[in-house]
Structure formats: C-alpha cells, structure tokens
C-alpha cells in the first residue's frame, strides 16, 4: 500500500491541504515579524527620545568655555564644567583600576579554577547580591572604608565606591564569556602539553577577551553616571583639583547640584553637562573598542 492509495486525511485533496497550511504559515510569519519590529521600536524609543531631548536642551549651552572653565558663582552667566570633566575622569580611572582586575580575576576563578566548588558558589552568590545593592549603600561602604579612616572626603573614596560597584558586573560577564569558550579549544591547549594555568591565561581568556572587554565597558558606562555613591565620598568641589586626597567634582554630582539649584544659568549648564556625560561615555566605549579591535586577524570569529 502506498501513499497515493491511502492518504492521511482522505476528506481533503493533498493540494488543498498544502495551500491552507501555507496560508497559515505566511500569516504567522508576518505577525511574528511585526511583533519583533514593534518590540525593537519600544526598546529604542526611550533612548532616542532622551538623546534628542538632551541635544535640544543642552546643545545651545555648549561652548568652548564649558570645557575650559570652572563654574561661575550664581548670577554670573558663563562658566563651565571643566573641573567636573577632569574629576569624573580621575574617579573613573581609580574605579576601573580597582573594579576591572578584581572583577576579571574573580570571573576567571569562577569559570576555570573553582568550578563547582563551595567557595565558587559563595563568590557567585555574593557577586549577584552585590549587583543588587543600592548604589547609595555602596557610597556608605566607601565612606566607612576610606573616608572615616582618612578623616576627609576624597577622590580616592569616590573611586573605591564606584570600583566596588563595577566588580559584580565585570566578574559575572567574565565568567559567562569564559564558559562560552568551546571545550575543544581548552583540550587543544592541554593536548599540546601546556600547563593548565598557562592555558587559561593565554588561550581561554584571550579567546573570550572581546566579551570580557564588553563586560568591562558596560560596568564602566554604568558607574560613570552614578551620583549617589559620590555624595559622601567624592563630595564635589567647585574648583580645580586633580588630587586623590582632596574632594573632587564629578559630572553626575555637578549635574545633580545644578539641576536642583534655583538659577536658570545653572539649569542650562546641567543640561549641557548631561549631554556631555552621555557623549563622553559613548566616546570612551568606542575608543576602547577601536583600540582593542586593532590587531584582530582576518577571519577571527
């Protein structure tokens, strides 16, 4: 007995069954595509809206003075946020110097050396909890750890607060990226008589490095806009300062102070500051991507 003499559904000829089903499939395909496009639009709308509004409100207050001058006293027009830009740079450099190495080290431990151990589970749990701790609490922690022993506010304490905030993100993305490196690549290295630690550092971490760098940039971009952890650590400073031991200004802090002030000039500067903050973060991320993507070979997946 073959298919022709024994159709699956005798009531409907095969040709008609096919066209019914293909009509349904085409319709489902279009509906799902439309939903996907709609979801994409919903995701990017707030981002575009914020950016357009910032340009609209902030661009006209941007001038050379904004990048070269410190703020003027209220009532005097002009002035800029140069000290805050410098201060943000210093605080973020300190936080990256703390958060990136510790985070990557922790991620390497979780993925390569401690896999399945009790310590690794404890570290992973701690990192997840740390990720959920409100940022103001991070500020309190840095206050207790650095400001109280030093007996004064400082750029260093601000960097410590942001650095601690970076650790969980860097740590968990590093772990996930390392776990994505195919087992075959690790075996290839071990099969060549390469000691395990060497294989981890030179092969696995290197293979995962694009993802690890992305994780570091995400953490960096997140803490670059933080205000709360800096309120009682970096404190803020209306004058030039590049010292790690002095209170220092940072862009988010200055935007916060200016935005809640009663002066129109300061409001305009705050808008410009918000625009500059976003642009600087985008530039920093793009720069790191550009620098780290040079030297990548043709055909590297």
């Amino acid at each position: 007995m073959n298919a022709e003499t024994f159709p699956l559904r005798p009531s409907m000829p095969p040709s008609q069954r096919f066209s019914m089903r293909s009509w349904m499939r085409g319709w489902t395909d279009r509906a799902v595509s439309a939903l996907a496009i709609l979801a994409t639009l919903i995701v990017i709308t707030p981002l575009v809206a914020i950016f357009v509004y910032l340009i609209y409100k902030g661009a006209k207050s941007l001038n050379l003075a904004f990048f070269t001058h410190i703020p003027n006293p209220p009532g005097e027009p002009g002035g800029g946020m140069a000290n805050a830009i410098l201060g943000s740079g210093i605080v973020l450099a300190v936080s990256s110097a703390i958060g990136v190495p510790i985070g990557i080290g922790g991620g390497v431990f979780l993925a390569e050396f401690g896999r399945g151990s009790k310590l690794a589970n404890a570290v992973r749990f701690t990192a997840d909890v740390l990720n959920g701790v409100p940022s103001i609490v991070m500020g309190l922690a840095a206050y207790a750890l650095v400001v109280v022993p030093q007996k004064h506010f400082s750029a260093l304490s601000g960097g410590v607060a942001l650095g601690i905030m970076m650790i969980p993100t860097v740590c968990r993305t590093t772990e996930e990226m390392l776990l994505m490196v195919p087992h075959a690549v690790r075996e290839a290295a071990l099969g060549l008589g390469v000691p395990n630690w060497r294989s981890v550092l030179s092969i696995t971490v290197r293979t995962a490095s694009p993802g690890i760098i992305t994780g570091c940039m995400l953490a960096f971009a997140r803490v670059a806009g933080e205000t709360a952890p800096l309120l009682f650590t970096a404190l803020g400073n209306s004058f030039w300062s590049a010292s790690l031991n002095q209170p220092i200004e940072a862009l988010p802090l200055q935007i916060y102070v200016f935005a809640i002030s009663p002066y129109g000039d300061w409001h305009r500067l705050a808008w410009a500051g918000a625009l500059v903050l976003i642009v600087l973060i985008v530039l920093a991320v793009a720069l790191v991507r550009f620098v780290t993507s040079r030297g990548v070979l043709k055909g590297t997946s």
Partner: protein
Amino acid sequence: MGVGIEVINLNAWYGNNHTLQDINLHIPANHATALIGPSGCGKSTFVRCLNRMHETNPIGRVTGTVRIGGLDIYQDANPVEIRRRVGMVFQRPNPFPTMSIYDNVAAGLKLNGYSNRRSLDEIVERSLRRSALWDEVKDDLKKKSGASLSGGQQQRLCIARALAVDPEVLLMDEPASALDPVSTSKIEDLVFQLKSQYTIVIVTHNMQQAARVAEKTGFFLNGRMVEFDSTHKIFTNPSDKRTEDYITGRFG
C-alpha cells in the same frame, strides 16, 4: 623517532560507567595502528588514556599501566610532560580562534616559554610542510586567523601544531570524520608519510581508511578489545566472530 606503546590491564571509568575493561596490547613503533569499533565502544577513551587526557575530565578515572618507550606514564611522569611527547589531533578541527596561522603552529612552543624567533620560524615552516599545508598558507602566515581556513586546512593546521612540539607519538581521534573526501584523502596521505617518523594511533569509523593507512588494527566492542592483529588479517580472516560481523556490516 617514534617509540612503542605497551598497555597492560588498562581500565577506565566515567563516573560509575566502566568504559574500558582490561585492555592489553602492544602498539609497535613507527607504524600506524588503527582502532575500529562501533560508537561508544571506548576507542576514544582509550587514546585519551595514552596521553592522560582522560583524567582532565573531573569524573574520569584510570587504572593500569601504560608504557611509552619504556616510561610508565602514570607512575614516572606528570601529565603535562607526557602530552608534550604524545601529540593529539581531535575529531573536530580546533585551531585557536584568536591566533594567526603562525601562532597556532608555534603555540605549543611559545606557551612553554620557547622564544627563539629564528628557530621558531624554521619549526613553523617545517611543521607546515610536513602537514602539507605550507604552500596554501605561506603568504598569510601572520595575517590570517587559523579559524579562517577551510575545515580540511584547519585539521592539517592542527596536525602541524601537534608536530611542532616534536612528539614521539601522534594520537588521532577520528581526524577525518568531519571532513569531505578530498580533505580526507589528504589526511590519509599524511598519515602514510608521517608514520615513518612517528608512532601513529588513529581512531576511525571508516574501515577502508583503517585498511588503507594502518599496519595493525584493533577492534573494540563494549569497552573491551576483541581482537588486535595485522590489518590484513583483521579484514580478511578475523579470528573472532564478532570482528567478522562488524567488518561485514552485520552490526554497528
């Protein structure tokens, strides 16, 4: 030069799964030895015991003795040292994706702290010539990633990488099973040339391949070695009924 391998009462486990049971055999130096058998019979586990890769799996366990050129690899040496003397080529080509062709071949030496530029250049060229890849890649050695090559080229790159550390034994775990017929025949030609200098153990599902390249063949079934003899004898006049059933296609 290659060295012989002597295996005495080898047993291996994955967790509670006894995957290799009482394996005894002598693999001759400077010959190719093929291992055949149905999937899951323990051939791959067996070759992984010959360079102590089996124990890199946290649930893997091995007992018994393996002597390579007189050295008891489970008693008298550490695994890292053994793997430098016993090279391995895996089923799927696995070049290091972030490294250039040159760095892939030099990886084994560089990662062990060897850094003499001129002799590295020489070793890379010699290894790539031996794996018959030199003419195809000599112009983009440092420009292209190992991952940009075709599957067959990648597998020959992996062979060059294994040869660069100058092993005595070369283990090949189904080296051609993921490749097209043209690349497969290139790999077979290679095995044919290389066996004068190295002891080669090749796992294969392809019985014609075993017949073409190997002097000796072992038949594995359910974790045991059923028969080990000259390839000619295995394929024309096997002494065990199960071997005969397998090579004539009655099961497996």
